[in-house]
């Protein structure tokens, strides 16, 4: 770089030259700064994803590694007011399994054995052999660790019970049932609509109908929840009542049906895009062989655009799995291990909503449990998203 000080700029040409050089340098710096800012914006989505994963893991890992203290109360013996500790079977510091005896009592009315309500290490026993305790009083503390087995094998989700349970399957069953009901509606209806829009409809009518159908996905889900609970559910109760089936006001059937309506545009719109991407020659070839429109659609277009249609289905599944407000309102918020759609049950998302509605103490195991459930939901949707991406990539027909 030449000297830029005004003193050395003796002639006009030098001044012009120098100014231009200065301008270019500043321009380059400016371009560099702008590119840097844009890069930061571009990378922000990765940072957000890392943030989500870190937050979910930072609560899920303590959920499985930090033990919670469980209290066990003295048993009741009919006819007795107080009990005397006659023997401590599992002293402080020993490990007990769920259901193992911990303390033995005697009383005039009879004897009793206190059993552990959870597995873990005995932290504290409030009383020694020979002391008298009242019934139903806090006696033993057990340091209990939620294990993967508790999470994946148990079939009850009840984090705020006295004897908390964290069986994720009762939530997965609700998620699965509502999603299946939704797909039962959305896949046939959405696919037929897609074929109809791409093969039967006039192009200018399609230009109006397609965005109008997409409005179905734009309706706020809480409004759909209102619709499912207060309109669809009574109608379904009446319809099923004619077949002699009674159903409560909260049921997975209504929630699933409305969720199905919500995801119709995901199926229809994306499948239609895929079908229209099939080259016109294939269509014309089919017509030339004397096929009707429906034959062309079902035997040529659907197989040719199968990757696009499948990824549309998978997107719709991911959307249904993660849907919250419809199920929280219409399917009830009580975890229930069942696949019967006429029953009330909570999905993973509804359980999270239900837990956050109450006042969950931060740093409690119940608080961490919703993050563990959230991670589970995230993994399920991620699985479907990646599967859709791979199917699209692998089976894409190149024309």
């Amino acid at each position: 770089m030449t000297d830029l000080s005004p003193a050395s700029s003796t002639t006009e040409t030098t001044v012009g030259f120098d100014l231009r050089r200065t301008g270019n340098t500043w321009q380059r710096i400016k371009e560099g700064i702008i590119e840097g800012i844009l890069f930061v914006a571009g990378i922000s989505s990765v940072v957000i994803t890392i943030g989500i994963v870190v937050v979910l893991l930072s609560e899920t890992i303590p959920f499985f590694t930090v033990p919670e203290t469980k209290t066990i109360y003295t048993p009741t013996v009919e006819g007795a007011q107080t009990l005397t500790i006659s023997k401590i079977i599992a002293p402080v510091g020993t490990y007990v399994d769920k259901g193992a005896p911990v303390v033995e009592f005697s009383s005039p009315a009879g004897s009793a054995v206190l059993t552990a309500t959870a597995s873990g290490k005995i932290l504290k026993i409030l009383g020694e052999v020979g002391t008298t305790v009242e019934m139903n009083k806090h006696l033993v503390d057990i340091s209990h660790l939620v294990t993967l087995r508790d999470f994946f094998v148990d079939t009850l989700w009840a984090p705020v019970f006295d004897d908390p349970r964290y069986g994720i399957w009762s939530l997965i069953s609700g998620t699965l049932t509502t999603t299946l009901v939704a797909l039962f509606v959305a896949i046939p209806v959405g696919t037929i609509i897609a074929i109809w829009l791409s093969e039967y409809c006039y192009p200018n009518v399609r230009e109006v109908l397609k965005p109008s159908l997409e409005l179905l996905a734009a309706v706020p889900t809480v409004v759909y929840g209102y619709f499912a609970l207060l309109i669809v559910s009574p109608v379904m109760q009446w319809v099923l009542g004619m077949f002699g089936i009674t159903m409560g006001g909260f049921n997975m059937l209504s929630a699933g049906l409305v969720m199905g309506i919500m995801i119709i545009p995901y199926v229809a719109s994306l499948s239609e895009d895929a079908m229209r991407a099939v080259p016109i020659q294939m269509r014309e070839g089919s017509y030339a062989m004397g096929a009707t429109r429906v034959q062309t659609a079902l035997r040529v277009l659907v197989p040719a655009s199968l990757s696009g249609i499948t990824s549309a289905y998978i997107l719709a599944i991911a959307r249904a799995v993660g849907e919250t407000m419809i199920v929280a309102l219409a399917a009830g918020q009580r975890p229930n291990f069942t696949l019967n759609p006429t029953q009330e049950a909570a999905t993973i998302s509804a359980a999270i909503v239900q837990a956050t509605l109450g006042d969950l103490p931060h740093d409690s195991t119940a608080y961490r449990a919703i993050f563990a459930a959230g991670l589970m939901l995230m993994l399920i949707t991620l699985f479907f998203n990646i599967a859709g991406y791979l199917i699209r990539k692998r089976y894409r027909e190149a024309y």
Partner: protein
Amino acid sequence: MSDVSNDKIVQLRSQIARRKRFDRIFSSIGGFLVVLSLLTLGVLFVNLVIDGWSALTSTYQAKADQSGFGRREIIGKLIQEGSEWKLQLRPLVLTDVDDATLQPLVGKEVGVKGRMARAPESGFDPSSVGPIEGPVENYDLVGTLTRQQMSVIDSQGKTVQTAVYTLKARPILVDVSGIDPSKLNPGQDVSVDPKRALSGGAVVASNIVPLVTKNFFNSFPSRDPEQAGILSAWVGTLLIMLVTMVISVPLGVAAGIYLEEYAPKNKLTALIEVNIANLAGVPSIIWGLLALGLFVYIIGTGRSIQTAGLTLGLLVLPIVIISTREAIRSIPSTIREASIGLGATKWQTVRYHILPYSLPGILTGSIIALSRAIGETAPLVTIGALTFIAFLPPPPVEYKVPEAEWAVYQEALKANPSAPIPEKQWHFQPTEWLKSGFTVLPIQLFQWVSRPQKEFHYNAAAAGVVLLALTLGLNGTAIYLRYRLRRKISW
């Protein structure tokens, strides 16, 4: 054709007819399903409007100071006669009356004394109504009595005839001493507590509370479904959308420009692209957990408007990025090449060509993002917004008594009832509203639907109409913009 038998032709023809019939049936099924889907949307909207209509349109009168009505409130209208102020009470309905004692008084001037109320509607014990004896000043109210026969359905469901008396009171004098009369408006509806304010046929002006007409849009949520409204909800929605847009649009557009114009073809770019696609598929409840775990507990922004706006801003970010990229991608590369060819730098090309030409697409995407954010409920429930919010966030500039001085004044008032009221001051608090608690339309709706009472469901329907009109309106605008601008631009 000669070697094809007649039977074969007939068979082929019927086969063709069958195929064509199937084709027609399929066509009508498809059309029927499209209509049915759109009809669902229509039914949903019409149903919401029918259920919510009464809540949307009804108005009620409330005290301007929001203290709520007592059970024995008297409502009247202020009138000015010369320099005198008077209160014209609304006709008072007397219930639970003894027909035999009151019937002779019908059409005559009567006086009311002993205002301790028994009947909740009127605030007057009907047994204190009697003919005027002595000076009128001895009575609290003077007026004429009318009687009407009415059919009323009693508790057993039988229709019974009952007498209903109405007392049309003469205007009562308002004692305006010690109050600035210019603050009183002739014709204003006001409320008076009879137990405290009314004595000797006059009412003290300081005990009068003006009434205002309220509706669904300017009332706070309430335990009384008739008076519950969405004021705090729509203000919250508006403010949160402001924060959401301020975060998501600049960030999303910048990210879109980077990916389309600057990003080299490498693994990092591929990662960002896959990542954005995945981020768009993250369930909204997960964003709520992110907000709860990161913003509320780690960063400590609280259960506030800024947390909600930030969360929704990040939630709709992928929508803005994807629509920006699509808009930029539709600009032909010749535009770029021409700009570079004329000596423009990369940023100049983006600033003067790419951005202006992709602006319609970016605008459409931002509107879609906004409509998505307006309807989001789950992440905000997770943050913990589901509370009874009967206040508005503090405005950026406020003229009020400082809180510390107000507390001192409240203390002083206990010892000395005539303590001077501290002076109001201008407060500049431009970011204070960001830290305020909030509620939004979808959460208000969720709360109302969750209640067992039918009346609250009507309120929920009314909130649903507003919410649906907002989202469908925004989406309609986006569709219209896309359609119009696409026709206008030709490369």
